[in-house]
């Protein structure tokens, strides 16, 4: 199993541009999440999906997701802002399971 994979690893955007961060898992996990990691802030939940076809957001606008199937959970930055400069981490787990999540390696995004 590849686990949770994320692409790209690094990217630089200009303010106002849009971008999709890719996330895929091959463990047949129902539950997937996106976090951002910022210095001194820990990991903050942005979006999550309990199953294919369902999504729910945790933070205000600026992001969008889709969950068309079990494997993929792309995160879209609609119109990038410098405040969205961060490391973005995707995670998955079995639905209802309470033994933590599996994380991808992250995407380091810089918005100029």
């Amino acid at each position: 199993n590849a686990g949770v994979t994320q692409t790209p690893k690094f990217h630089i955007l200009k303010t106002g541009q849009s971008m999709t961060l890719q996330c895929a898992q091959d463990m047949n996990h129902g539950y997937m999440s996106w976090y951002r990691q910022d210095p001194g802030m820990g990991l903050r939940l942005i979006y999550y999906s309990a199953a294919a076809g369902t999504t729910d957001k945790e933070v205000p606008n600026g992001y969008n997701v889709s969950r068309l199937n079990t494997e993929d959970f792309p995160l879209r930055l609609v119109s990038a802002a410098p405040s969205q400069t961060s490391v973005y981490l995707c995670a998955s787990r079995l639905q209802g399971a309470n033994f933590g999540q599996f994380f991808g390696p992250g995407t380091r995004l810089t918005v100029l």
Partner: protein
Amino acid sequence: DQQVKQNSPSLSVQEGRISILNCDYTNSMFDYFLWYKKYPAEGPTFLISISSIKDKNEDGRFTVFLNKSAKHLSLHIVPSQPGDSAVYFCAASSTSNDYKLSFGAGTTVTVRA
């Protein structure tokens, strides 16, 4: 509103000694607590967890203690090894909130040879 707090941003410890990482939480609905370890340029990996019905869980060199009345948990690493140098995140979840994780800010542990 940070519901999980790790008040020590960093910890330096000598190899072979004990590392103690602390975590406080404010939400009394949290009923499951986890520690994650993160190396640079990698995603966090699960380390150890504890349910609110227990006060201690041990896995090899790692032990987590939970004090529910104080809303406090700690991670003990004994003995500390150079490979333990990483960022450690405390996380908490609630059955009533579909196990969504709330994370602390992290503690960077450096193990000195």
